[in-house]
């Protein structure tokens, strides 16, 4: 089987499992909802000023919620030594990574789709700039979080404190991507600046780290 065929099968299996159990989606959604409510205590969320911080707010909520899903990426494969079975099988490791990354991308995108109306309602958001740019930021930004997140989750499950480890190694590396997402979103929402530079930066970030992830995943998954 080719790389893509294995990836497609694995992705289909993961999505089917997620569809039946809804573990990751439910916990992510509830978590993001909690973040929305807790944030609203620290400032007046309906004030006109809040549009300036809305970009940061939305992405921090999505980031924290995404970590919940990312942490569960490999947990399922550890039970019954599925990951070990995969390692000794002739299936390419890259396709496993692609399937997991795309699966997480779908989950986090679904979360964003469900949460955005809630943000709009709770924080009284209106976009001054063009909305299609927000969509582009969301796609590039989510991939930036998810591709490294999937890779680092594979690293963190091999450490002593699995769940705590992921944000500790993911957040520092993700700082430029987060900065790009937050500032681009703010500049579209306020309509004050063009997000062009940030979109280019996100595209470069995605390209660089997708390449590195694909190049190093085989090494990391077979680390003894």
């Amino acid at each position: 089987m080719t790389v893509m065929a294995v990836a497609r099968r694995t992705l289909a299996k993961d999505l089917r499992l997620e569809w039946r159990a809804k573990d990751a989606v439910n916990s992510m959604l509830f978590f993001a909802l909690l973040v929305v409510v807790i944030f609203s205590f620290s400032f007046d969320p309906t004030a006109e000023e809040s549009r300036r911080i809305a970009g940061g707010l939305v992405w921090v909520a999505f980031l924290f919620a995404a970590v919940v899903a990312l942490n569960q990426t490999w947990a399922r494969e550890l039970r019954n030594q599925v990951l070990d079975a995969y390692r000794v099988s002739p299936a390419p490791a890259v396709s496993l990574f692609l399937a997991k990354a795309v699966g997480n991308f779908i989950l986090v995108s679904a979360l964003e789709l469900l949460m955005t109306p809630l943000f709009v309602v709770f924080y009284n958001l209106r976009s001054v700039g063009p909305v299609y740019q927000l969509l582009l930021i969301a796609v590039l930004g989510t991939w930036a979080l998810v591709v490294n997140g999937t890779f680092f989750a594979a690293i963190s499950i091999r450490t002593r404190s699995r769940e705590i480890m992921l944000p500790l190694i993911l957040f520092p590396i993700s700082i430029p991507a987060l900065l790009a997402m937050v500032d681009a979103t703010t500049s579209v929402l306020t309509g004050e600046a063009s997000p062009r530079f940030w979109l280019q930066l996100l595209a470069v970030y995605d390209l660089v780290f997708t390449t590195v992830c694909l190049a190093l995943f085989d090494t990391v998954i077979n680390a003894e």
Partner: protein
Amino acid sequence: MKRFYPFFVLVTLALLSYAFYQGMFAAPTEATMGDVQRIFYYHLPHAWVAFLLFFANFLASIWYLVRRTERADALALASAEVGVVFCTVVLVTGPLWARPVWGIWWTWDARLTSTLVLWLIYVSYLVLRRFATGAQTQVLAAALAIFGFLDVPIVYLSIRYFRTQHPQPVIGGGEGSGLDPRMWIAVLWNLAGFLAFALLLVRLRYRLALAENALEAAHADRALGNLEQMPPPRASTQAGESPESHSALKLGNEPR
């Protein structure tokens, strides 16, 4: 190398003392900032040495992934650890200097922010090394080191854009165009001194890492030696493992 070592310690001490003299007495007092500017002779060399050590960590990590030698990993660990120490010195001397000159301890200026992010990245590398277990630590750490180093130019690019786009409360940076030649001499002597000091520390840490690995290997050997004297448990673990790997192989054949 061993005979050379005490000599190198003496050279480092001599360099550091002479650099101290240069920075504290020989260099002229800065016109507007006064004597507090002399912290610059520690601030800048530490920053450069830290960047150099992080680059060494990147090269050693690639070397480890290609060759899988203990030495490469020990070098990566040593350079990252000493690099974080030097970067910490930069982050501590910066505010000490900024407070009397700028009037504030910290400002989210481009250079300060990116140095802080750099520090965070390498601290996370050290955290991973502490929490990972067994021999896989070295592979995982090497992978993270490559991610971290590739992230550095993106961090600089993004933060520079972010901070120049917005109005800046404080005009940053003390060094630059109009540096007195005698100040340059003091900078270069301090750079030489602290570079030698860093190399000394890296070498010590490198030897320590190798010694730790050797000790761990010796413990493992001893434990295995004890096991060999008691055949029954060893046989049972083998029996426990084989059906698993057998079924795994069968699973693996399926996709073909």
